[in-house]
């Protein structure tokens, strides 16, 4: 017998338990007024007994896996006990079914607890992320010092296969990766910032309702395109285009240049910037605009001198969110940026980013205790902390801004 079949049996038992409870309360109800409807009695019986036996099975399995592995040979006893628990609990609940038994209230309490447990999962995931990256990074920092990792300028994560191998002691200085990440994020913000902001301004202040209703969904298509498609676009269209243009002007541009990756990432982020800016600009009170227009300012003057200053905190918050998106973006840079760590500020050269290196280090066969694999988690930790801070500041700023005008 396996776990699945015992769960199936419990399922079947619950159904019959449900009908037993239903039947008893239906019969009793004929003589006396009941507190709860019959289905609640049935459902409570089924849920009570199945939950308690499933709870027992799960705790047994946890104990078996972590503490007493030799318990595995007693699986049959587990099955028998779980069935006995099921039957006892159903019998106890069955006996309780009376005219004044508050089955509905009991059941509703269980449902409320279930809902609470589900919402705890969000916290559990955050804790899980935190623990998993910190735990593995800690192992990594046991081998390579944290200062070397954060401030070293040489990155070549190849660990020697043999002890005596020459010239291949791995180096884990992550500065070139941080530099590359910020270079690409900077290029993408140079594209997405102005274009996104200007299109938001045009759509919210100038465009007619009809234009807005057509153009806005169109720009939002850009946000729905999978990033792997952007990566392909960068490799097949944008990178060759940039290289050819560069060679026409006598500039040598690498085929995996930071410029190509940053440009395409910029296109991806445009709708992100424009929809947040749009929200923010729309929530500037109409009075401010009317006041400015009323004293004779043109529309553009109103926008530049009144609306943007008023909306500035919100816009900055939106841009910060966009930056965090750009830093964490993976597929575009994996496909279009380089693999080799290169400490440069020249957008025509190939650079690598934190996310690219995480993928490079983890794809393929891996042993879990080599610094190479663990380095990926250390990079993940840095990425997580940076984006967390950016998001926190951005969400805080945007929220404060909204409250100001509400």
């Amino acid at each position, binding site marked *: 017998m396996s776990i699945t079949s015992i769960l199936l049996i419990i399922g079947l038992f619950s159904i019959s338990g449900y009908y037993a409870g239903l039947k008893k309360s239906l019969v009793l109800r004929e003589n006396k007024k009941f507190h709860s409807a019959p289905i609640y009695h049935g459902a409570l019986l089924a849920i009570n007994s199945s939950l308690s036996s499933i709870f027992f099975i799960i705790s047994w399995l946890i104990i078996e896996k972590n503490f007493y592995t030799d318990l595995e040979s007693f699986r049959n006893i587990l099955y028998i006990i779980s069935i006995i628990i099921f039957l006892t609990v159903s019998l106890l609940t069955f006996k309780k079914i009376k005219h004044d038994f508050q089955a509905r*209230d009991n059941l*509703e309490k269980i*449902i*409320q607890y*279930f*809902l609470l447990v*589900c*919402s705890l999962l*969000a*916290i559990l*995931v*955050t804790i*899980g992320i935190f623990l*998993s*990256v910190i*735990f593995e990074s800690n192992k990594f920092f046991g081998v390579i010092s944290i200062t070397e990792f954060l401030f070293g300028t040489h990155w070549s994560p190849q660990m020697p296969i043999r002890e005596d191998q020459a010239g291949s002691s791995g180096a884990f200085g992550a500065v070139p990766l941080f530099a590359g990440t910020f270079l690409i994020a900077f290029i993408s913000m140079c594209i997405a910032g*102005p*274009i996104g902001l*200007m*299109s938001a*301004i045009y*759509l919210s202040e100038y465009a007619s309702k009809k234009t807005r209703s057509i*153009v806005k969904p*169109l*720009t939002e298509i*850009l946000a*729905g*395109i*999978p990033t*792997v*498609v*952007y990566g*392909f676009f960068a*490799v*097949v*269209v944008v990178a060759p285009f940039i290289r050819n243009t560069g060679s026409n002007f006598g500039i040598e541009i690498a085929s995996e240049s930071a410029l190509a990756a940053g440009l395409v990432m910029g*296109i991806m982020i*445009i*709708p992100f910037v424009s929809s947040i800016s749009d929200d923010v600009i729309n929530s500037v009170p109409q009075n401010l605009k009317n006041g400015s227009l009323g004293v004779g300012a*043109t529309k*553009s*003057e109103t926008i530049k001198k009144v609306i943007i200053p008023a909306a500035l905190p919100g816009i900055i918050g939106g841009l910060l969110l966009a930056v965090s*998106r750009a830093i*964490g*973006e*993976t*597929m575009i840079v*994996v*496909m279009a940026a380089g693999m080799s760590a290169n400490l440069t500020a020249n957008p025509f050269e190939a650079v690598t980013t934190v*996310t690219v290196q*995480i*993928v490079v280090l*983890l*794809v393929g066969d891996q042993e879990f205790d080599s610094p190479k694999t663990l380095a990926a*988690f250390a990079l*993940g930790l840095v*990425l997580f902390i940076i*984006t*967390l801070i950016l998001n926190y500041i951005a*969400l805080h700023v945007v929220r404060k801004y909204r409250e100001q005008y509400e």
Partner: protein
Amino acid sequence: MNNLKARLAKERRFRLYGILSIALALTLLSILFISIFSQGYTAFQETKIQLDINFEQSVLDPKKTKDWDVVKKANFNILIKNSINELFPDVSGRSQKRKLKKLISTSGEYQLRNYIKNNIEAIGTTKKMWLLADDDVDMLIKGHINRSLPENERRIDNDELKWIEVLETKKIIKKFFNKTFFTSGDSAESEQSGILGALLGSLFALSITLIISFPIGIATAIYLEEFAPKNNKFIDFIEVNINNLAAVPSIIFGLLGLAIFLNFFELPRSAPLVGGMVLSLMTLPTIIISSRVSMKAVPPSIKEGALGVGASEIQAVFHHVVPVAIPGMLTGTIIGMARALGESAPLLVIGMVAFIVDIPQSVTDPATALPIQIYLWADTPERGFVERTSAAIIVLLIFLILMNSLAVYLRQRFEKDIN
């Protein structure tokens, strides 16, 4: 007066910047679509060559056993060789003959094998069969190889070109709808590779995602919106957590999956099961946030009415608020699923990136997903794979468009319901 002119000119310029930036964004969008469609549409056709295949008794089944177990050991390649040599009797020499045979894809052998497996009586007869052409021939027929280039600059040499032209005049080389693309898994040969394996991988992963994230997401939304105590620090903490999770880079979820699901719980690598679990953690915030928005939009009078006639809190919520909010919740779920379908970074980390030929049969079989297949093919320089990459992107985009249209439809229905 001059001042006013200058100001109005400024106004016009500013307005122009706005129009230009929108135009630029839309141009880039259309360049993206045009370049992908123009490269990809040809992949929906495949080139086949018609040959008179003589299923010779002496080759396949010399002892006349008519037993598949005997016949399957026969060399089916000889049949193709004989047939195509008959077509070009003046080709001589081993290397020339081998080149001639290479016009046909290596899958031709399997095609004949399958045919005989199902029609064992056909041994000894001759049949006209359309066999898949090699990818270079395919590219030439589709016009991706320029025939007027000098010989050393194209992948088809003069001899092969001459033979293909003979086939063309005899009208026995033709383009068909590309069935292979939709019915097979990945392959090293571009003409034999398809997206079925990746599509099923995505389907399995998304089913897991839906099973996990839909009930949990909706339960969380209901709790936070209806039952959670207000102004409680702990509840605030949960909400901050959910908002932050929505903005955590997707690759971090991959690291979580690797460390916890694969390393700690020892679930199988490369399996859609783990992929789906990781994606479900990613889509949870989307579902929670949009479900809450749609529950907020339900007029409070509905709940108050139910409470007023004596329903309990739970009854009011589950019998009256949730049914109204369900289309809105589904909208959020579908948008989350669409995002999960296009997501690839976390799947790379948990090992769903590999050359997998077999079609996955269950959620624990190794598999790739559609975006990962695109990533893998995009790495291959061959022209045949570039075409298939674009075609796979087109398929992915079609799925996304369908899902999003469904979401928009449901949202409109929801808005009509509550007004």
